[in-house]
């Protein structure tokens, strides 16, 4: 049973900001929902409530950043990447300002439905020049984000997790910027996973290994820049091909970046992209949606069968048996 951490970002933000008077938090009416309430209560002079007005919030953040402050925007990912896109691109990204945008509820992690599910945020952020993109896959990643983001010279978009977050990686092994975490090594398949899909992939890779499939599994936390040489090496060393697995559209995210990389480097292998297949999601629990849209461990098993050309006798029960930890029920009572 793996450890589950409750609201890791909330406590980490309070602790991390204590000795950093230049760090400000900007919020758009989702303060506790984005675990910024601890910061608000601890440092009220550095907390600014800007209301449900994200376009203006982006501009305020830009102005504060120009003056030497480090604004940490906290809201849902959709309200960073969709609604104020022009403001984000022109007021923040063009001048390469050090605004940190902490976006919550990535992909289908919320039952809030299509308006709250950021299924295209990575794609939207990737095409913005100067933008750095990070994504958390566990509590250790969550707790690493502030240090890693703060070291970047320019704007940073963080796909952050909240609430009950599993700790997949040791607490003393923080996320390293630009470096994937190598979770297993093998030469049949390369699996690249990001965000909450990594936990799901780990269940499948354990079952696949038991069937004799040898897998290189890398957890990717830095989605842009996407230039980690370990990724190319793992792809090149995979006999049957590559599977990219993400809580996002298959267009424009991890799978797309992998395809671009393979084409540019002339690595002629098959690639299966697991993700939302150019289709919107809807309001339901995370587990339900992961199964419905094929983002779960079984989807990875099916992809492995496809690439290796061999049927693998792996059942749902087998996957449940290697369950790494108790998935908490999705936050049905969240403030949306």
């Amino acid at each position: 049973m793996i450890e589950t951490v409750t609201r890791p970002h909330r406590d980490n933000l309070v602790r991390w900001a204590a000795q950093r008077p230049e760090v400000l938090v900007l919020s758009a009416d989702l303060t506790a929902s984005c675990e910024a309430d601890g910061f608000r209560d601890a440092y009220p002079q550095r907390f600014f409530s800007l209301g449900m007005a994200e376009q203006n919030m982006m501009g305020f953040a830009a102005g504060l950043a120009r003056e030497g402050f480090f604004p940490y925007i906290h809201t849902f990912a959709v309200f960073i990447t969709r609604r104020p896109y022009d403001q984000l691109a022109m007021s923040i990204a063009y001048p390469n300002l050090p605004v940190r945008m902490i976006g919550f509820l990535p992909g289908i992690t919320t039952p809030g439905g299509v308006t709250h599910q950021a299924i295209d945020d990575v794609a939207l952020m990737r095409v913005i020049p100067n933008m750095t993109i990070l994504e958390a896959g566990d509590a250790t990643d969550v707790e690493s984000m502030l240090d890693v983001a703060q070291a970047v010279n320019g704007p940073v978009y963080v796909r952050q997790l909240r609430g009950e977050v599993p700790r997949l990686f040791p607490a003393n092994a923080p996320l390293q910027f630009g470096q994937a975490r190598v979770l297993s090594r093998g030469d049949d398949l390369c699996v690249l996973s990001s965000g909450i899909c990594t936990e799901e992939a780990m269940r499948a890779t354990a079952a696949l290994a038991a069937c004799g499939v040898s897998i290189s599994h890398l957890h990717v936390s830095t989605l842009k820049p996407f230039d980690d040489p370990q990724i190319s090496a793992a792809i090149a060393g995979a006999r049957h091909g590559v599977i990219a697995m993400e809580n996002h559209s298959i267009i424009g995210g991890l799978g797309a970046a992998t395809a671009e990389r393979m084409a540019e480097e002339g690595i002629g292998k098959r690639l299966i992209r697991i993700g939302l297949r150019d289709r919107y999601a809807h309001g339901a629990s995370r587990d339900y949606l992961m199964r419905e849209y094929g983002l779960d461990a079984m989807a990875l098993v099916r992809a492995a069968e496809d690439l290796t050309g061999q049927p693998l006798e792996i059942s749902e029960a087998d996957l449940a048996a290697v369950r790494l930890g108790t998935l908490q029920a999705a936050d049905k009572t969240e403030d949306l």
Partner: protein
Amino acid sequence: MNPTDPTSSGNEQRQQVARIADAVRRRVLEHTLKHNGGYLSQACSSAELLATLYLRIMRLGPSQAPLTPRPFAGVPAADNPHAFTGADYNGPKAPDLDRFIFSPVHYALVLYSLLIELGRLGPDALDAFNRDGSTVELIGAEHSPGHEVTAGSLAQAISQAGGIALARRLRGEPGRVWVFMSDGEFQEGQTWEAFAALTHHRIGNLGVYIDANAQQCDGAMDEVSTIEPLAERLRAFGAEVHEVDGHDSDALTAAAEGFGNGDRPLAVIARTDPCRGIERMRERAPKLHYVRFKSDAEFKAYEQLLYKMRAQEASANAASHTASSQTTLGHTG
């Protein structure tokens, strides 16, 4: 010249604004003739307003930038340490000095012309206008002389200025932040988000001057999408609002008197005439956004007007050199 010379009287300052504003119109007309195109009506509406801001309202130090505009040094990026903004034409950044944020950057030609007349840019600076590799861009960018933020997507500057004003308050700086806006920007929702935030956070060191010329790209604003009653709307949002004749330098100056110590943003609606000083342009109404001459006859008529403006300017300058304060500077119609 010393625009903030406290010994100069209101009368002298008013005359100086009139002289500079006329020269700005003349320079923009010259440019429009030379290139058969230009944002001429914006010069007509905003010449006194921008000249008053620079000469009578804003506390700015001397330009820190070269008279000849620097070439473009590349877009800002982590690996480009050479990128710069054009803010240093407005003087150094210092706690007690004001900042100027220029929002409707299609007025860039007007601002460049004003900077030339104020001696902050050299007389030949417009030679680089709209040239490849130049910073003197057609639509001003943050690297263009006198510009500080990326504002071409309209209504984004006021929010950025709000962030700057908030930062200055956090640092306890007495200097103020001035934003020049066009009235069309009050169609954008972001402007109203910004005023809501400015008043909620009691940001009292930010003042906005609005060139209310009632014109936009498609024509008259009340035909396209009205923003009136603008003063009532701004008051309802909690701003301190003044509505003045935008060609009256004294009224423009009085609206900012003592501003900077309160807890409300200032909005000055400067009602302006987009044809002021170039009466002939009225026949083009309501399409005044960008002037391109339609015939040789029209070109020649504007050329004649330019010669007349030059002659008036020369005699005015001669008169001011003889220290006679009785001139006819304001009359161009």
